[in-house]
């Protein structure tokens, strides 16, 4: 599903991602862990074309992102195939929850408005946000915004979802709900790649963990093994 080959990314003299080669299978639920500044978030952003890189390639389905020349159409296709949930969610501030979810289907996928609304309502029900569909982002709690952001990403019917630190801005009492939601999504076959430093969360959700240090994969395997050997 996601094939990363010799991925190298530099910021000036500093090598952030150093010749990474990784593969994620369809339906896999993987966490990416490691110390701060180890390149986790940059790695995730490269998978979605939000970050360019210097060497290597990222293949997602039939489309391939390569260092340097990236066609806009290819990036757009890849972004539709791989959803992204930001650490701070970044819901569109001027739109209600429902409007956030229907925005991209209508304007990118050209789905009819009525169809988009019908589907968006189903997605909001799935993330248990039906009761707040007409609320604006500023009226929602962090956990609620995150659920809407997940629904917004799912509305594009992606094969995979990339999540950046999903528990860092979350009330600890809400983490259980998120674990349950992601468990349901994984059961439906969605591939999840989650950057996190929350090991309890990673153990509860993931089937695989990848530890990044200084831009290199230092450990890769079962969460119980990888997390035990990786300092927080």
């Amino acid at each position: 599903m996601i094939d990363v080959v010799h991925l190298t990314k530099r910021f000036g003299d500093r090598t952030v991602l150093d010749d990474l080669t990784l593969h994620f299978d369809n339906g896999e639920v993987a966490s990416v862990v490691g110390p701060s500044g180890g390149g986790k978030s940059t790695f995730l952003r490269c998978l979605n074309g939000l970050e360019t890189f210097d060497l290597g390639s990222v293949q997602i389905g039939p489309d391939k992102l390569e260092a340097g020349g990236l066609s806009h159409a290819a990036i757009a296709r890849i972004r539709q195939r791989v959803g992204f949930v930001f650490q701070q969610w970044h819901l569109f501030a001027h739109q209600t929850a429902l409007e956030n979810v229907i925005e991209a289907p209508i304007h990118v996928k050209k789905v009819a408005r009525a169809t988009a609304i019908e589907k968006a309502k189903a997605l909001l029900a799935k993330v248990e946000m039906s009761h707040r569909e007409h609320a604006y982002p500023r009226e929602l709690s962090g956990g609620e915004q995150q659920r809407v952001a997940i629904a917004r990403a799912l509305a594009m019917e992606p094969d995979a979802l990339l999540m950046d630190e999903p528990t860092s801005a979350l009330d600890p009492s809400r983490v259980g709900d998120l674990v349950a939601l992601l468990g349901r999504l994984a059961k439906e076959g969605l591939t999840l790649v989650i950057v996190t430093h929350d090991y309890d969360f990673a153990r509860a959700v993931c089937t695989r963990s990848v530890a990044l240090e200084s831009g290199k994969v230092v450990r890769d395997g079962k969460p119980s093994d990888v997390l035990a050997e990786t300092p927080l």
Partner: protein
Amino acid sequence: MKRSAATCALALGSIVIGLLAVGSSSCSSEPSGGTLDRIRASGKLRWGGDMQGGEPYVSEDPNRPGKLVGFEVDLAEAIAREMGVRAEFVQNDWSNLVPSLERGTFDIAMNGLEVTKARVGRVLFTRPYYIFQMRLMARHGDARVRPSLRSLRGLRVGTLANSQSWEALQDTGAEVLPYEGVEEPYIDLEVSRTDAVLLDHIIADRYGVPHTKLRVVGDLGEGYYSIAVRRGDDGLRTALDRALEAISKRGALRRILRKHGIDDAAQARLATWSDTDTTRMISERAAAQRAAGGTQADVKKPFTWHHFMLFLQGALVTLVVSTAAMALAIPLGILLALARLYLPRTPFAWIAGAYVEVFRGTPVLLQLYLLYYGLPGLWEGLKLDAWTAAIVGLGLNYAAYEAEIYRGGILAVPKGQLEAAWSLGMSTPLAVRRVILPQAFRIALPGVTNDYIALLKDSSLVSVITVVELTKRMTITAVDVRSWLVPGLLCALLYFSMSYPLSILARKLEARLHGESR
């Protein structure tokens, strides 16, 4: 909201009352003879004029900046010498010479001031120092314009506001266009924005005749330039009359006129002019003023319902010009802001940046002049009518300010919003249109409202290109009714009643939009 409106009305009311009190106290003129005594005591005769009026009246010597030349400069010196004092020039806007004289800014006004109906009731005039003709000019081949006022019915005729020609053109059925300067009426006539120009022959000969496309149609009556003094200054007027008489009788006046190339046979009458002639000149005009509706020459013409309707019309012009200019400035401003932010290091960004700096960094008045009077000289096809030039000129200028407001608004939208849009497969243009601009607009709204209100007032500048909007209507009426107080207050009230609802509307809109964002 209701309470704040009431508070404002109250505040405005007390300002009105305050101004009325000030107005009535300043109306009392100086004790008679006082000015003459002061001139003698100080040894200075302060005379008011406008050096922008140009040759041959009073103007700056192009070879010696700061030095004044003109036949009135020579005349003022001759009169002062005759009175045993020194002449001192006081610069003043021509259209406000009479109010400034009344306020005591200078002792006498002498700058091509025609003895008109409106002025005879307001100031005292001396014997004339020049006899002029109202000269009609039109384009070659335009047979509609003949040497009579009647032929002007239905035509557009340019002249100086509140001049004798201006008075002569009232009630002729002509559409009279008021100008501030002497060059502009002839430029507009040449490019067919108007059909004829009626002005003093000195002006016509010097500023009209050089235009090769124009011809002199004929003269429509004579008039007089006299020195104006404040009412009550009878002693000063007598002293000036004696000085002028002496200068005229010994031929010095005509020598001055000859030196400046404006002497002609008609001026021979000045040497034999008597005080009876002066009385007749004044009373003829006072009679005309009475016939026109004034009861007595020295009674102020009241501010009537007719004036009020003209004010409303002026307010409508202001509103239409401002709104149309804003409708042009907003989309253009958005394009400029987008070019600067999203096409960096391209010629588009460079052009947009230069546009903003140039239009923001030069006076809008200058831009209006160049657009209206300058462009047709470049190419005939760029001849805009006054309304279009007013709207386009203000719109282009305000677009520069709008661009900066939107640029600030766009920059204030968090970067994450754009990334979130990208992550959903949106292209940058789509993300800007659907996600960034709607939020930037909310942030920019207070600035845009502010600009719109500023534009309402800045639109008064378009009077320089003959659009009679609210402020221009006010100044014309102020001269007409001989008071700045009532027209000024009404004008302020009308501006306020346009801008205040606008700020309330904008505040409500802001409050509503704020509910939606962040």
